[in-house]
């Protein structure tokens, strides 16, 4: 039963226009990169220089994918359940003998699989195609680490988007997700700067707002930046002792909250 619903989710999300648009955009970027590198190779650079430029260009490509994969997670997350609610199909689906939380979970996991699939294909198939066409050797090490680091944050991003889409229209939910992502990043970097202990002891309005966003929302941008740092081998401040348990707990809390709210929802 859950497998059938999961396949249904994958079929539904794979038809998403956002996915198609980003897929086409990826191909365009790859084509531009290939053309630039080929032109440089034919006219100016020797093979050694070409490898450096090719590696750098590919790094930027991985970085761009790493950045907008979160955007895709928000876009698909906002439609995962909202589209069923809008069409009225949801009342048909929840009248099957499954608990509502399972329906929610399957929809979230389905979107997660699609987002990860897109991420994987964009990174690795794109990189492989680039390498074959240009002859430039591509290093996938950083991209693989970034992919692994982003696994759970993407689930958290989808969960947040699903939650917001239960209350507001899809486009506004998407905008709010992006806005929240920035707010959380600002709060987190502010708290990191002054230290959590000081933030908690010297309590004022701004700090309490900062702490609210810091503790109750997933730090998707923080994780994304950390993942990006592996692509170019740069330094990024990342408190794994706090971020890992926070992400796990907050993702579970948000999924639990959505399930609770959806259980009470009149359909």
């Amino acid at each position, binding site marked *: 039963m859950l497998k059938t619903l999961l396949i249904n989710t994958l079929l539904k999300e794979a038809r998403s226009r956002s996915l198609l648009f980003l897929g086409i955009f990826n191909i365009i970027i790859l084509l531009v990169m290939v053309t630039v590198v080929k032109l440089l190779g034919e006219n100016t650079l020797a093979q050694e220089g070409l490898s450096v430029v090719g590696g750098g260009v590919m790094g930027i490509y991985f970085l761009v994918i790493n950045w907008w994969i979160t955007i895709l997670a928000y876009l698909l997350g906002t439609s995962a359940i909202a589209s069923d609610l809008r069409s*009225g*199909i949801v009342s048909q689906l929840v009248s099957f003998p499954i608990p509502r939380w399972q329906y929610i979970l399957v929809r979230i996991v389905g979107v997660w699989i699609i987002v990860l699939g897109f991420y994987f294909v964009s990174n690795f198939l794109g990189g492989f195609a680039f390498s074959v066409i240009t002859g430039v050797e591509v290093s996938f090490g950083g991209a693989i680490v970034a992919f692994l680091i982003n696994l759970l944050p993407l689930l958290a991003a989808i969960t947040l988007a699903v939650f917001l889409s239960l209350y507001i229209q899809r486009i506004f939910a998407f905008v709010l997700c992006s806005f929240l992502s920035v707010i959380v990043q600002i709060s987190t970097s502010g708290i990191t700067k002054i230290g959590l202990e000081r933030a908690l002891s010297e309590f004022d309005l701004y700090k309490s707002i900062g702490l609210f966003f810091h503790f109750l929302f997933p730090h998707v941008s923080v994780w994304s930046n950390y993942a990006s740092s592996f692509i170019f081998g740069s330094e990024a401040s990342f408190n794994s002792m706090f971020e890992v348990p926070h992400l796990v707990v907050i993702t579970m809390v948000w999924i639990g909250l959505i399930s609770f709210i959806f259980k009470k929802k*009149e359909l």
Partner: protein
Amino acid sequence: MDAILEVKDVSKFYGSFQALKSVNLSLKPNSIMALVGPNGAGKTSLLKSILGLVSFSSGEILINQIDCHDYNSRKSLAYLPEKFIFYDYYTVKGTISFFGQMYGLSGSELSEKIDAISSELGIKDLLNKKLSTCSKGQLQRTGIASVLISDSDTIFLDEPFSGLDPVAIKELKDTLIKYKNKGKTIFINSHILGEIEKFCDEYAIMNHGEIIEVGEFSKFQDGTFEDYFYNKVKANA
């Protein structure tokens, strides 16, 4: 024999508006009951309460002795909403198959049942047609096939004749009688009194959120229920 469905003193409010007023109803196994009433009588609210789609303020609903809020209560029932909507990129066969799989069917059993039900409802030629290209009547018949494939003991149909032509209405009535003879219990929410009178066993008249009468169709001669219903509702206005 225990009732398949027991609605006990169920009340429901939408804000200050009371949609259901201490509704009591029970459904005997192996029978066809029609819930009838004018628009806004509370029929859909009652059906949605039974299916656990909406919460109610007080009372209790048991399906096969299981509380309707427990998802296990839905193991023995299938539901067709008033307007059957499904993802339009699915084919008719894919849709019926999805519903079958959601009720645990698979492999050759699923294929055989799709074959049998599509023949019964006259949609065999439509199996490979996408829902986006189906007419309203074809969609409705796909919905009915999707519900009947579940092999559930109790079938809830909300306005099942809506959008069907006279031939399809006749075929659906025959199919429902056949399913009743197979031991199924059917609960129909319908406006079309002339049709339900001919094949349903029991009726429940609903008005202003209350069940004002429950009875058997056998006491009416052909065509007289419509007048009876009209007078009852007018008297209760």
